[in-house]
């Protein structure tokens, strides 16, 4: 079955099945698109572009996962650029929940770029998503193909969600195209000191809508929240564990920082953190703990 969907097919701008939204962008619209997967018109009806920095922080990753999971579960197609970091987080959160996602590649349709995300690539196709590119064969990605790709990402979508973006990032280029094509722009606020939040803060200043929960975006699409059964850990916390959770809710921290903030020895904190992690209250990534 996978063989069939991984066959490359072509659609031209004259075809009646060419996505309407993309056609609207006029001269920017690609004349020809190569694609893999099942070309079902339904997939283009409600698209949201989700873009984010390649160097997503653990905050950005967590927010992307939370927002995308609920939005994709509600039935919205997630469009992104298959890069590592923000794009990867959006695609994989979608396939995990069984949602549909479109990956617009910066390279020829026969290439998987970046190569090591091949597993995700196959998962997208398995979950009836699409892989799209305007470049044929084994065309190598180049500096100029990334921004060109971004116009398709913006063109396919009714709205775009920027999670984290630097000031000179590709995410802002996508946002620029979205503005040009008259799409709605959503941005996630972050710490004003963080480099990867500077781009999103700039967007907010220019009038992008602030997103704090999935409802903000679903409202725009006239969708309602799907009843997701996200299991929360049920066992109760003791006093020390509660204090740790309180600290971690503010921001992810290292064991040292938690110990200092609570004035408890790091030995004790370490043991407690391990147990909490095993119980599933918290998780650890690159040295920092965060609340699940």
């Amino acid at each position, binding site marked *: 079955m996978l063989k069939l969907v991984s066959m490359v097919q072509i659609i031209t701008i004259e075809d009646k099945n060419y996505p309407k939204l993309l056609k609207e962008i006029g001269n920017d619209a690609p004349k020809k698109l190569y694609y893999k997967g099942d070309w079902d018109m339904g997939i283009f009806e409600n698209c949201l572009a989700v873009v984010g920095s390649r*160097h997503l922080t653990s905050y950005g990753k967590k927010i992307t996962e939370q927002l995308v999971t609920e939005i994709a579960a509600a039935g919205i197609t997630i469009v992104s650029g298959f890069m590592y970091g923000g794009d990867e987080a959006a695609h994989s959160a979608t396939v995990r929940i069984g949602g549909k996602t479109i990956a617009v590649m910066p390279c020829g349709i026969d290439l998987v770029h970046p190569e090591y995300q091949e597993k995700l690539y196959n998962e997208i196709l398995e979950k009836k998503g699409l892989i799209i590119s305007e470049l044929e064969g084994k065309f190598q990605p180049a500096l100029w193909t990334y921004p060109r790709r971004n116009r398709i990402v913006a063109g396919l979508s009714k709205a775009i969600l920027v999670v984290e973006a630097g000031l000179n990032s590709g995410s802002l280029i996508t946002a620029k195209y979205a503005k040009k094509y008259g799409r709605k722009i959503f941005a996630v606020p972050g710490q004003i000191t963080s480099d990867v939040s500077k781009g999103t803060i700039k967007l907010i200043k220019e009038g992008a809508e602030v997103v704090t929960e999935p409802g903000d975006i679903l409202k725009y699409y006239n969708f309602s929240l799907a009843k997701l059964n996200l299991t929360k850990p049920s066992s109760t916390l003791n006093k020390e564990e509660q204090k740790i959770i309180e600290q971690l809710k503010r921001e992810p921290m290292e*064991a040292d920082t938690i110990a200092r903030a609570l004035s408890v020895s790091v030995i004790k904190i370490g043991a*407690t953190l*391990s147990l909490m992690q*095993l119980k599933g209250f918290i998780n650890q990534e690159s040295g920092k703990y965060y609340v699940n």
Partner: protein
Amino acid sequence: MLIKVPSVVNLGLETIKVDVEVNLANRGLPGFEIVGLPDKAVDESRERVRAAISSSGVDFPSKKITVNLAPADIQKEGSLYDLPIAVGILSSVLQFSIPEKSLFLGELSFDGFLRHTKGALLMALFAKEFGFLNIFVPKDSANEAGAIKGIKVFPVENLIQLAGYFLKRKNIEPIVYRKNLNEISMPAEFDMREVLGQEQAKRAMEIAAAGGHNIIMVGSPGSGKTMLARALPGILPPLNETESLEVTKIYSVAGNIQPGGSLITTRQFRAPHHTASLVGIIGGGTRPHPGEVSLAHRGVLFLDEFNEFPHNVMEAMRQPLEDGYLTISRSKKRVMYPADFMLVASANPCPCGYFNHPKKNCTCTQQQIKKYQKRISGPILDRIDLHIAISPVDTTEFSDNQKNSELLESSKIIKQRVIFAKIRQEKRFEKDLIQSNAQMKNIHIKNYCKLTKDIEELLHRASIKFQLSARSYMKTIKVARTIADLEGVEEINISHMAEALQYKPKTYESA
């Protein structure tokens, strides 16, 4: 006239007796020849012996002198045969007899004085084992040999003095061993209290020092990895008697003992640079020589910028990490060196170093990061007990008390706890052949790390959740054992095990 002077040859750490046979023939043209597989240094000893005897005021005999080093099929190397050859010639000229059951070793200088020579300790050990009573060694090398009780070690200053002694005109007092105070204190570069923050990393260092566990620190430049490692010698427990002898043997063979040096009682801290060659780190060469891993025996091998080390060097460390010794095989020789060291490694998370840095941006692509982290192979990481992620410390967030290093724990206090835990381990392993928790094999873990049902279940859950390998599973138990030892408790409880899980192998990438 044939004279036999006994000496030794060291093959690795193994010592074999060598008879230095000196024949002075009245017939034939005057000459001086050495046979019996001598190397260049032994061959050149002819010139040193000739000059030294002349400088001592004795006419060098104009006879045909032939020296044979028996057994003749073992390669002899180094300058240690100068003294036995000279003694052989002198005994013929001055007509004295060489005392029974004596061994000789030492390099001569042209003026007849003896120079510090490597391997004296090994000769003393050999002498004791095989019933020799006296050994004659250079004065500078006598103290290390004097550490061996039950034999007389004669410190020889020059040939005149020695000849005088044999002719019963002068007396040489056997050396009385004394500890060399200069060598005992090898101070750490930093005190642990100088390291601000990094409480968990310091704690991991303490556990590592107490149980002899290998440790790896991953973090950005400037986060304090090297400083922590350099502070480590300050909290290491001293060597016990057996260990001290083992270490000094290696240093004696390598010629790394200072003139007049005594037994090494502190754990050695070796920090080879990542450009060091394979032979330099592992040991070997045409004349097998102990490498850095052996010089770090019972001590610390600190490898800064671990992933910059060549692949072959890293992989070659697998045997010593597992077995505690390594075998160097050459076509004609096979020597074994002990190499039971504690590995302390530090690495950056990515080529630019700032991956996950709170302030600075990482400029590496994910592929570069993956490639960089893959340079440390899985089997090596699997042999490391404690994994620590080190983040840079922002001291502006510290309260005054936290910033005041006077209030922090000093290395001295930590060291006391470490020694306490070390003594517990020595007592436990009295009947086993191991010294520390890190060396425990599965059978020891079964005997000494009894886990209750609860803890076993906890560990089982953890191994599924964190995808621990079977080896990591065992390592976690060993670390928990050390944590319990630091606390002075025989039973491993839940919080020991939970803390041990803090130091499990981590994935540093975000994927």
